[in-house]
């Protein structure tokens, strides 16, 4: 009961965040005249279709133009272009929520559609694949290495890790990606420099999959490389902090085997604060993914961002901004659930 309450509160707060972001986006678009432009584009596109359809039936050019003018005025009224932007806020929020943002100016989906929804949604799986794969690899390495280092504080490898972790704070993912391309792709030619498949893509399911993995290797390596240091450090520090807590001494006093002390009294107790740190690190990894996709020409949402900026495609940018926020908030909620499950104290004291 209390658990559901706590989680409900978190969910509510995160929905609030989403709403604030939506409002920020829509108000900015409205106040700067961007929404006018986007709606005008939608109207124009509909008019193109209408003109074609009407041209079949109305042969008199003057009457055709007249009808089209009327139709256009109707549409403009429908979309609220005849009214000030703030009266359209709710409608605009709805549009962003459903990604109903009309057609992209230049960008097309893989099969040629220019609908923003099509373009954006088909990229989502590629982004998720990249981020989750690298996250899992990072987590495994970070937990293993961090636990190992926690048992040998002050040794050279421990100090080295601290420095590397600090260094990874200063190493942007995109720059690391560029370095990897320069060395592993341009110089040594071990990995492809970008893209999803070789061209032409190999036939056969397994070969195709292998080819995909081969292309994903560098971006994943990049993402792992830039975050694994920080993970290791966080895990190590949290374990050390926990190890200093008195109940650990008390567990040792009871003569419990060292392995059990580590597992049950250190690792398990440190899990919630580690989860917290990971929640906090999530913002950074989203940013890292956007830029890494750009560097490796990986056809996910991040690369799409880059292309949309290059071609000044505002509708796509709005859709992506919203989608990224949505994904982030979802991921965050999943972690919050994990945190609450891990820590009985939170479960019972609602705060």
């Amino acid at each position: 009961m209390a658990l559901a309450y706590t989680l409900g509160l978190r969910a509510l707060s995160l929905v609030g965040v989403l709403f604030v972001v939506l409002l920020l986006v829509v108000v900015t678009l409205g106040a700067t005249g961007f929404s006018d432009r986007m709606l005008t584009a939608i109207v124009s596109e509909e008019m193109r279709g209408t003109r074609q359809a009407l041209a079949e039936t109305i042969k008199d050019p003057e009457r055709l133009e007249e009808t089209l003018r009327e139709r256009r005025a109707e549409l403009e009224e429908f979309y609220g272009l005849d009214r000030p932007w703030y009266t359209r806020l709710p409608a605009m929020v709805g549009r962003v929520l459903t990604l109903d943002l009309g057609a992209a100016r230049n960008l097309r989906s893989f099969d040629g559609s220019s609908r923003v929804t099509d373009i954006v949604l088909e990229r989502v799986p590629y982004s998720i694949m990249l981020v989750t794969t690298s996250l899992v690899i990072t987590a495994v390495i970070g937990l293993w290495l961090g636990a190992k280092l926690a048992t040998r504080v002050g040794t050279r490898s421990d100090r080295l890790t601290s420095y590397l972790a600090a260094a990874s704070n200063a190493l942007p993912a995109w720059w690391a990606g560029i370095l990897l391309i320069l060395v592993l792709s341009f110089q040594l030619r071990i990995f492809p420099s970008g893209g999803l498949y070789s061209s032409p893509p190999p036939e056969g399911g397994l070969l195709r999959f292998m080819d995909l993995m081969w292309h994903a290797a560098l971006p994943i390596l990049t993402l792992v490389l830039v975050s694994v240091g920080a993970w290791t450090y966080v895990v190590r520090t949290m374990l050390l902090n926990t190890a200093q807590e008195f109940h650990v001494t008390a567990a040792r006093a009871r003569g419990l085997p060292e392995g059990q002390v580590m597992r049950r009294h250190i690792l398990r107790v440190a899990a919630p604060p580690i989860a917290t740190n990971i929640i906090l690190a999530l913002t950074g990894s989203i940013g890292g993914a956007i830029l890494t996709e750009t560097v490796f020409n990986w056809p996910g949402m991040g690369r799409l961002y880059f292309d949309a900026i290059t071609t000044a495609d505002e509708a796509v940018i709005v859709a992506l901004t919203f989608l990224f926020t949505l994904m982030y908030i979802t991921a965050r909620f999943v972690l919050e659930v994990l945190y609450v499950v891990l820590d009985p104290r939170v479960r019972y004291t609602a705060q």
Partner: protein
Amino acid sequence: MRPGEALRVVLRSGSGRLGMGLLAVLVLVSVLVPFFYPLDFGLRFWNNPIAWADNPKAAPPAWTNLLGDTAPRHRVFDAEQPTGTIDAGSARIRQFAFTFSHQTVEPPTFLSVSIGAVTFHERPPILSMTLTRPDGRSATLLQEAVRGLRPDETSPVTRFADEPRRVYLTGDAAALGAAADFLLREFDLRTSGTELQGRLEEVLFSMPTGEGVDSLAPLNGEYTATIRVITYDPRDSVQSVRFVAAGGVYGLMGTDTQGRDLATGLLFGFPVALLIGVLTSVAATILGTFFGILSGFSGGRTDTIIQRVSDVMTNIPLLPILIFLIFVLGQKLWLVMTILVIFGWPGLTIILRSMVLQVRSGQLVEATQALGASRWRIMFRHVFFQMAPFIVAQMIFFTPAAILAEAGLSFLGLGDPSLPTWGQILEQGFRTGAIFIGYWWWILPPGILIVITAMTFVLLALAMEPVLNPRLRERAA
């Protein structure tokens, strides 16, 4: 802990010393750069192609020649006074002779001639340029008259005052024709200007070894470029003359595909990066500290509001919002910094609030309040000082985040064009495909500088740790 003591603790660690050293270099360069750069450097120079026309394009740094490469040096000759003057009746011939030694296999990457402000009264002056080779042969690559008086003009007239008359010989049809003539005259090789397109320097700086223009041997030795300006009135004048035999390498850091001197851009990046980092983190820290202490101390509605706002703000993924806002509102550096500040303070506020709550539940606050101290005195004389080291550490820690955020944004092509940054240089390199062609000098240095700058602050933050956590300092009983 007193500031002096804190500094000593920081300097005791290796990372602290390294960080301080790097910081000193950063600050020194950043302070010096504004003395030597105009403030509108970005618009007037960096993003103005004309300013870089006479530089070689995509040339690696000059010092790569030491590694065994044999690219010609970049040569620029400027003169305001002629090296010789010949009077021939009413005409006066100003000669500007520039001699240079050519010792590499590769010819210059291009040749250009520029003439600045020419003033004349009656007849328009005539400009010419002749290249004399070590074998004594010479070719006149340029011969043209300055445009005469138009009906609406009155004498004297000054031409090329705003912008010099620049002839890019490498792509100049007349020069190519002249080169073809030269080959026919001297070596009996029959070609045409169009055939020589893009090969002007190659044929001028070599000896034919067989039939045709495809078998050439480099001709090393002294070359002289002579630029002549013939005027017809004693009052006529020419302000300056420039000849460029462009090299294959350039300067300390090489050039990009527009011929921009990367060293210049990278140097300018120092104060900009420091400005972004320091200003943003200072502002965010001040806001965060103020709201954090206020929130923790005042409680009630103020606290709730600040808490809610911070919670929402820290839950918003920064980069997508930053991209969106900069895209919509315009690529302005101050805007980037403002957004970073707006999204940067809540993190600190949340941490400080919980620290304040801890301090507040301690008896210092109670005791001071009982003395009759005002809330502000308690908050900023007592509570603030307790947290000052932590706040400073947070500020240092936030600095690279701001620098990296701006770099990432620039890398996506949303940099402020009026202020070149390292991120923008990298972005232009990336967009031009520099990594796939191997223009490493364009890609590596800006990235390394970003990393080093960020690293400086990370190292300092690392060295601050013992200041914050006395347990690390002294492992006594």
